[in-house]
């Protein structure tokens, strides 16, 4: 290709070259590829590109490298300095899971005080926000301002400001159980063959979901999968059993235990918390045990 005959555009040429080499181009490369440009001219062009944000300057092994930067990703607002740009990009990469300040420090190579300043200024400008994670209460993660935090960070529907709402869960679990029991009773009342009774007493999570929503006990809207996890606790409490339907969804049904509370726990010894320390002699012994006395004098 005869370079001298066509009109030479150094800017587009350099961009082309940088695009071909994502690892960056050095001054030496530029000189080899564009011998016709003299140094001041080249400096002028590169400075222009750097200012426009098309190229980025890196330094490796005492050598300057220019890298191409995709203008479509260029979202950093004007008025930010280079540190802010770097930090912003790291946070952007983390997505809605957020990133911990320690990891930002490692990635950006900024020192603590500087990073704090940068983060604060980004926060003030409402580019990013800090979200407290539920898994570790003291850990703050940063993410872009307009992102909705991931459920692994907020804990989903069961968390309010990193506090697990156990009462809310308990109430829901009770109501789910109640629904299943009512369903079983209904099925029994309607009568019919055992298989029919069984099939009628099965409920899907979607049905329970509808029931819970109609009750209106929840201020926030719950998804069907939220109800599934609540129903799983009912199953774990042995108040319901879960089977898989033909189409792969789960069916729930209220059940009974196999046995009544065993004789062991009908006595105070079976539920005694100091039973390990109890012996024939010593301060905890059956003859002077106050728990036994209370239990025996009770009705």
């Amino acid at each position, binding site marked *: 290709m005869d370079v001298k005959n066509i009109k030479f555009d150094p800017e587009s040429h350099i961009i082309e070259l940088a695009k071909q080499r994502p690892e960056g181009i050095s001054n030496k490369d530029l000189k080899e590829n564009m011998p016709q440009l003299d140094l001041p001219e080249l400096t002028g062009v590169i400075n222009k590109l750097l200012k426009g944000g098309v190229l980025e300057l890196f330094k490796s092994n005492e050598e300057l490298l220019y890298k191409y930067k995709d203008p479509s990703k260029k979202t950093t607002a004007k008025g930010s300095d280079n540190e802010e740009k770097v930090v912003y990009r790291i946070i952007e990469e983390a997505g809605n899971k957020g990133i911990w300040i320690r990891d930002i420090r490692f990635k950006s190579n900024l020192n603590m005080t500087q990073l704090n300043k940068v983060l604060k200024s980004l926060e003030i400008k409402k580019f990013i926000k800090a979200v407290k994670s539920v898994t570790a209460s003291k850990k703050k993660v940063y993410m872009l301002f307009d992102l909705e935090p991931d459920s692994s960070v907020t804990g989903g529907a*069961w968390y309010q400001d990193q506090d*697990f709402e*156990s009462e809310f*869960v308990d109430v829901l*679990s009770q109501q789910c159980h109640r629904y299943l029991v009512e369903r079983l009773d209904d099925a029994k009342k309607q009568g019919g*063959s*055992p*298989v029919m009774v*069984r099939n009628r007493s099965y409920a899907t999570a979607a049905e329970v979901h509808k029931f819970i929503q109609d009750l209106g006990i929840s201020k926030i809207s719950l998804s069907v999968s939220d109800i599934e*996890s*609540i129903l*799983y*606790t009912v199953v*774990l*409490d*042995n108040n319901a*059993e879960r*089977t898989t339907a033909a189409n792969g969804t789960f069916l729930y049904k209220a*059940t*009974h*235990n*196999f*046995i*009544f*509370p*065993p*004789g*062991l*726990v*009908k*006595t105070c*010894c*079976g*539920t005694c*918390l100091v*039973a390990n320390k*109890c012996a*024939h002699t010593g301060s905890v*012994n*059956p*003859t002077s*045990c106050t728990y*036994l006395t209370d239990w*025996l004098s009770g009705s």
Partner: protein
Amino acid sequence: MSVVYGKIVSLIIMERFGLVLAKVASFLFKTPDSPLLFIKRGTELPLSKIKESLCILIKHGLVTFRPNKNENLANYSLDSNKVLLMLRYPKYLNFVKKQFGDESEIIIEEVLLRGYLPASELILKVYDRMSKNCNKPPSLSIIKDKLVYLITSKYLKRIPSAENKPVPNLVQNETMMHVLPPIELKTLITYQNDQRTVLPDKNIYWTVNFERFHQDMRDKIVVAAFERKFDEHAAEIIKLFLRQMYVRTEPWSDISNPIPAMEVKDILKRQANSSVALAFFDQYLTVMEQDNSRLLRKAGEASGGSYQIHLKETFTQLVWNLIEQVILEKHDTKAARIFRLVKLKPYIEPDRIQQLAMIPAKDAKKLSYQLYEENFFRIQELRKTPTVSGPVKNFTLFHIELDNVVRMLLEMCYKTLFNHITRRNHERELNTRIIDKKQRVDTILMGMKSQGATPEQIADIEELITPPERVVLDNIDKIMKKLNTVELEVDDTIFMLFIKDCDEYATQRTSSR
């Protein structure tokens, strides 16, 4: 074998046979397989007393013996499980009474009291007792029929006969175990009049076959479980299945041989009051078969489908249920929830527990470590190789070992029993004076009544016990009743835990023979 276990054994023997026997028994508990002189040195009792105690213990089947190297000496061991069975005697009696009536109850009671005795003597004893206590004593032939029934249905068994050696080797003739030798009622009647008559079955002794009772108790538990889980009709079907199971399976096997459903249906047809169970017979089978517990499983399609009962698995599940109930009562719902979660997903991380059980992190951690402390859980720790910098993260995984938990619960039961027996003895000791007085008054009253005293005289004597004393007596009565009932209930738990390993139970049975 634990310290508490040894203590209950000696307490039970003490209660029933007195101090000397308790001493011998607890020595044998500690050092099984000891010869006579060894026992003498360990207990420091006179030889005659030890011999007498061993006789009594052997008679009740509590002590077994086998020849030493020197065949003229015997080594004695205590069968501690049999001792514990003594707590269950009331249950056996109650069961027999309900099932077969009063005569059978007295037959079993006599055998339990004496350990073993020949059939003809047994019949006469029962007759004597019944004619003393009720107005219309049953005839000898009725008692004999009842006895024959008990023997053929294996509630009584023949004890092994001894070979003529210094230390007899006991030989069990399996075929003769449940066959009654002919007893002529005529001889019995002549014996009643003339004690010198020789009874024909003088050397054939009968004793109670506990396994048979346990088998019935086990079936009852299974049927009750099905009734609670499904309904009474399902329970009825299972009951018949169990009955049919014995036709072709050893009673203590883990899994029954396939039982044709048609057979059970035929029996149901003959029963008048089982129309619901019959009408929906197939459906009940489907429901039970498809249930998560999978206790009844289809074995084949031949002749209208045949089913197997998984007894061992049934009991494993019942024991799981029992442990869950214990935790539920002791540590409440949340802990039971965590326990079940760990059961379903063994080797689980604390974080997952908290997520799946939906319990706040702090509580979940507290409860799971509490269960660990109480030995319900075990921990498997995975250590990473220590890195130079940064925090070292270990994984803590929870899991359950059922056998360990069962053993621990058994220990707990033993401890509870021990506590209750000790407490009962203590209460009795505290109030010895009043109890003695009450007994004296009662004997006086009995004597006066038989002499035909006037009501005023009787009232006079009754007033010897003052109202405050009466209150105390009532109170003691209440306490004793409570402790006794609970003792029986704890024994139920022991039975359940014990029976879990049907095969272990069976081997124990054969070794004790």
